[in-house]
C-alpha cells in the first residue's frame, strides 16, 4: 500500500516532518556521542557533527520532496500502463469512447440550456431584485402563472405600489419601416413604458431613457435605438441623439442609444414609448410586466402592496373571476422568464440522464466481459505479489482515462449538438440572449465523466476483488458463480432501464409524428408568403389603404406562374388578433364572446385552399358601403351556433355571417390552440375596415401578410 502511504504523506505533512526531524536529530546526537568517546571536547564534537551533516533543513526538504516525486511517478506509471492496455484493445476503447462521448455530449448540450435558463443569473445589475408578477387563482377556473395586465391594472400598479419600480412592454417586437435620410429599412420595434430600462438597470450609452411625459397617450414621439442599429444603419453617428427619423411614416426624435451588449427581455432594433392607455390595446391584457424592488423594500412588502392595489382596482370594475380568489405574487424575473420552459428543460435533462445511465450499464457489461478475459493476467500479477488494491487501482485508472478522453470528446459533441438544437428552435423561443458552453457547463461535463467512470467501473472493480487465485491460475477461464450473478443482475437492470426509455422514447416519437402529420387545415404546397409593415402614416387614409391592397394583389397575380394571391392580417400558425363579438343566438345569446379575428382579402381561402363548408366567400363587392359581412370557422359555428345554420345569423350590431370555413392551426408548437384543439375565429374583409376608425388603426398597427400561390413548374424552389 505504499502508494496510499505516499499520498497520505503528502497530506499529513506535519507528522512526516516531525518524524524526519527526530530521525535527523538522533543521527547528530549519535555522532556527537561517538566524537566525545573519541576524545573531542564537547564543543568540537558538536561542530564536527554539524559540519559532517550539512544543512539539516535542506536535508529535511529533500527527504520530503521524495514523496511528491514518487507519488507522481507511480501515478504516471499507472497511467502509462492504462494507456498501453487501452491501445492494445482498440475496439473496446473506441466503443467506450464513442458511447460515452455521445451520452455525455447529450447531457452537456441539455445542461447548457438548463444552465442558461435556470442557473445563470440575468445580465442585469442586482438580478435578485428583479421580478415578474404571477397570479394564483383558486376556485372557478384555477390558474397559476405569469399574468399579463391591461391598461387600468397597469395604472394601479404604477401609482399604488411604492415598493416597486415597474414597467410594461407590449407583446413582441413588431415589424416597422424606418426611413433615415436616404435609407429605408424594415426592422423590429419594441414598445416599452417609461422606466423599462431603469428596471433592467440599463443606462443608455448616449442620451436618456423615456420620460413619463413621453409615455403618456399622445405624448411626444420619441425612440431609443439599439447599439446594433446605431452602428449599422446610423454609422455610429455621435450626434444621432436629438435627430429626427421617420418611423412608420411619422417623425420620431431619437432620445437615446443603448450600450453595447445590452440584452433586454424584449429584444428589438428600436424602441418606442408604449403610451399605455385604458382602451384600445390597453382594454385587454396585452402588457407584460417587469419590476425592480426599490432600495430598502422587500418582496413581502411589495406583494402586500400589490395585492392591495389590485384588490381596489378589481373592486372598481366587474371582476372577471367571479367566484374565484386571486392572489398575486412576485417571482424572480429569471424564474418568471423561464417558467414555461422549465418543465420541458427538466424533462429533457431527465431523458439525457437516462441515456447516460443506459450507456453506463452497457459499458459496465462490456468492461466486465473484458475483465473476464483479463483474469489470467490479474491472477498472474497477484501471484507475483501485487496487492489487490494495486490491481483495482489499475482498473480505476483505466476507467478514469476512458472517461476523461470521452469527456473531452463529449465537449465537442455537446457543442455540435447544442448548435443543432438551437438552430431547430424558433427565434426568440428561449428567453435568453445566448446559451454559452461556459465554465459551469464544462465543470458539469467533468463531473459527469468522473461519475460515469465510477458507475461503469464499480462492478468490474468489485469483480476484480473476487478473482480467485487458485482457480483462475489452474483453469485459465471464468466460471465463477458470483460473476454470473453479477452479470445477470446487470443485464436485468439494463433491460429494465432500456424498456422504460424505449417506451418513453417510442411514445414521444409516435406523438410527434402524429402531431406533425395532423392536417393543418390548409395546403402549404406551392405557397410563398411575404410580410410588409403597413403600420405607416401613409396608409391611415382608407382609400389609399384599399388602393394599395388592390394594386399589390393585382401585381402579384401578374407574375408568371402565380395562380392566386391574397392578403391577410395573419397567416396560419400566427397569433391572430383577439376581439369580442356580441352573440344574439345560441347558448351564449346576449353575451360578448372572445374570438380570433383575421382580416382578409377575397381569395384568401382559395389561395390557402381552406375549404369553404357553407355559404359564400368574400367578393369584391363586400366593402365599407355595403352590409358588413363575416365568415366564421367550424369551431366558432359548433361552439357558439350549434345545431343551427350559421349562415344568415347576425353578430354584434349588424355583422352578417355569410359562410363557414374549415379550421386551420393558429399556432406552431404544442399549446392549447394547436394542433389538437382549435379556437373560434371569424374572418372579415380587409377592405371593409375603413368604416371603423378604431379597428382600422388596429389593423394597420400590425403587419399584413401576403400569400401568393405558385402553380406550374419552374419558379418555385
Amino acid at each position, binding site marked *: 500500500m*505504499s502508494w496510499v502511504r505516499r499520498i497520505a504523506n503528502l497530506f499529513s505533512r506535519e507528522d512526516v516532518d516531525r518524524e524526519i526531524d527526530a530521525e535527523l536529530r538522533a*543521527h547528530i546526537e*549519535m555522532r556527537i556521542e*561517538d566524537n566525545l568517546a573519541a576524545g573531542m571536547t564537547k564543543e568540537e564534537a558538536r561542530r564536527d557533527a554539524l559540519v559532517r551533516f550539512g544543512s539539516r533543513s535542506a536535508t529535511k526538504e529533500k527527504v520530503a520532496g*521524495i514523496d511528491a516525486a514518487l507519488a507522481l511517478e507511480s501515478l504516471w506509471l499507472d497511467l502509462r500502463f492504462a494507456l498501453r492496455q487501452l491501445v492494445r484493445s482498440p475496439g473496446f476503447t473506441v466503443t467506450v469512447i464513442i458511447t460515452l462521448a455521445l451520452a455525455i455530449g447529450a447531457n452537456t448540450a441539455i445542461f447548457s440550456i438548463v444552465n442558461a435558463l435556470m442557473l445563470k443569473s440575468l445580465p442585469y445589475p442586482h438580478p435578485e431584485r428583479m421580478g415578474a408578477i404571477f397570479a394564483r387563482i383558486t376556485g372557478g377556473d384555477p390558474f397559476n402563472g405569469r399574468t399579463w395586465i391591461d391598461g387600468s391594472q397597469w395604472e394601479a400598479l404604477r401609482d399604488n405600489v411604492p415598493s416597486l419600480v415597474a414597467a410594461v412592454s407590449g407583446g413582441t417586437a413588431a415589424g416597422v419601416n424606418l426611413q433615415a435620410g436616404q435609407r429605408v429599412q424594415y426592422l423590429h420595434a419594441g414598445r416599452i413604458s417609461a422606466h423599462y430600462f431603469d428596471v433592467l438597470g440599463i443606462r443608455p450609452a448616449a442620451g436618456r431613457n423615456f420620460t413619463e411625459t413621453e409615455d403618456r397617450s399622445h405624448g411626444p414621439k420619441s425612440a431609443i435605438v439599439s447599439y446594433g442599429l446605431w452602428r449599422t444603419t446610423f454609422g455610429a453617428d455621435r450626434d444621432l441623439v436629438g435627430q429626427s427619423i421617420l418611423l412608420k411614416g411619422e417623425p420620431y426624435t431619437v432620445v437615446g442609444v443603448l450600450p453595447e451588449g445590452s440584452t433586454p427581455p424584449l429584444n428589438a432594433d428600436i424602441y418606442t414609448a408604449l403610451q399605455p392607455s385604458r382602451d384600445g390595446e390597453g382594454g385587454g391584457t396585452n402588457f407584460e410586466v417587469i419590476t425592480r424592488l426599490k432600495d430598502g423594500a422587500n418582496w413581502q412588502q411589495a406583494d402586500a402592496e400589490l395585492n392591495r392595489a389590485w384588490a381596489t382596482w378589481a373592486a372598481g370594475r366587474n371582476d372577471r373571476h367571479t367566484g374565484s380568489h386571486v392572489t398575486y405574487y412576485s417571482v424572480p424575473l429569471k424564474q418568471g422568464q423561464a417558467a414555461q420552459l422549465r418543465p420541458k428543460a427538466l424533462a429533457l435533462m431527465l431523458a439525457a440522464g437516462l441515456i447516460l445511465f443506459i450507456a453506463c450499464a452497457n459499458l459496465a457489461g462490456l468492461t466486465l466481459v473484458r475483465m473476464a478475459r483479463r483474469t489470467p493476467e490479474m491472477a498472474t500479477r497477484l501471484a507475483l505479489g501485487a496487492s489487490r488494491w494495486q490491481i483495482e487501482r489499475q482498473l480505476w485508472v483505466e476507467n478514469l482515462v476512458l472517461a476523461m478522453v470521452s469527456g473531452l470528446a463529449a465537449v465537442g459533441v455537446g457543442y455540435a449538438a447544442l448548435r443543432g438544437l438551437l438552430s431547430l428552435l424558433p427565434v426568440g423561443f428561449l428567453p435568453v440572449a445566448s446559451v454559452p458552453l461556459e465554465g459551469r457547463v464544462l465543470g458539469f461535463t467533468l463531473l459527469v465523466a468522473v461519475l460515469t467512470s465510477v458507475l461503469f467501473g464499480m462492478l468490474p472493480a468489485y469483480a476484480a476483488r473476487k478473482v480467485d487465485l487458485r482457480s483462475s491460475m489452474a483453469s485459465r477461464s471464468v466460471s465463477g458463480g458470483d460473476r454470473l450473478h453479477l452479470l445477470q443482475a446487470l443485464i436485468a437492470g439494463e433491460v429494465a432501464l432500456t424498456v422504460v426509455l424505449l417506451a418513453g422514447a417510442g411514445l414521444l416519437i409516435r406523438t410527434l409524428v402524429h402531431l406533425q402529420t395532423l392536417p393543418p387545415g390548409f395546403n402549404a404546397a406551392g405557397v410563398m408568403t411575404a410580410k410588409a409593415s403597413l403600420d405607416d402614416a401613409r396608409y391611415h387614409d382608407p382609400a389609399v389603404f384599399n388602393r394599395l391592397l388592390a394594386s399589390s394583389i393585382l401585381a402579384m397575380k401578374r407574375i408568371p406562374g402565380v395562380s392566386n394571391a391574397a392578403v391577410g392580417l395573419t397567416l396560419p400558425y400566427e397569433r391572430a388578433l383577439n376581439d369580442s363579438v356580441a352573440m344574439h343566438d345560441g347558448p351564449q345569446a346576449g353575451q360578448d364572446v372572445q374570438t380570433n379575428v383575421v382580416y382578409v382579402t377575397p381569395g384568401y381561402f382559395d389561395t390557402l385552399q381552406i375549404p369553404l363548408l357553407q355559404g359564400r366567400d368574400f367578393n369584391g363587392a363586400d366593402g365599407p358601403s355595403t352590409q358588413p359581412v363575416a365568415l366564421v370557422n367550424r369551431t366558432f359555428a359548433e361552439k357558439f351556433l350549434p345545431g343551427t345554420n350559421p349562415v344568415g345569423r347576425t353578430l354584434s350590431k349588424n355583422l352578417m355571417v355569410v359562410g363557414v370555413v374549415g379550421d386551420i392551426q393558429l399556432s406552431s408548437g404544442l399549446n392549447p390552440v394547436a394542433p389538437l384543439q382549435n379556437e373560434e375565429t371569424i374572418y372579415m374583409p380587409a377592405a371593409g375596415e375603413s368604416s371603423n376608425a378604431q379597428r382600422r388603426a388596429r389593423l394597420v398597427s400590425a403587419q399584413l401578410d401576403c400569400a401568393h400561390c405558385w402553380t406550374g413548374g419552374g419558379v418555385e424552389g
Partner: protein
Amino acid sequence: MAKNDLQGTLDLLVLKTLSQTGKLHGYGIVVHIQRASDDLLSVEEGSLYPALHRMEQSGLIASEWALTETNRKAKYYRLCPAGKKQLLEAEKNFEHLVKGVRAILRYA
C-alpha cells in the same frame, strides 16, 4: 545495458549493509560503510536520508523506532523481500559497471 548511476550505488551500499547487519539506524549505516570499506568510502550524511526515505516509500526497506545501546530513540531500518530482490539486481548491475569501466581503462 544496466541502470548505473551514483544514486544506484548508494542504494546498493545501504541495501548490502542492511542485509549484512539485519537492522540498523541511519547513523549506524554511515559508520558501517566507512568501517567496512577501511575508510575508503564515506557516505555524505545529508544525502543518505532522502535515499532511505525513497527506498522505504518504494517498499524496499521498512522502519521502526527502537532504542539504541545508549538508550537513545532511533529509527531502525531493515530489508523487505522486495529489497532483497532489488539488492541482487543492484549487485549484478554494479559488477557490470565495474567490468565495463575496467575494460575501458585497460583499452589501449
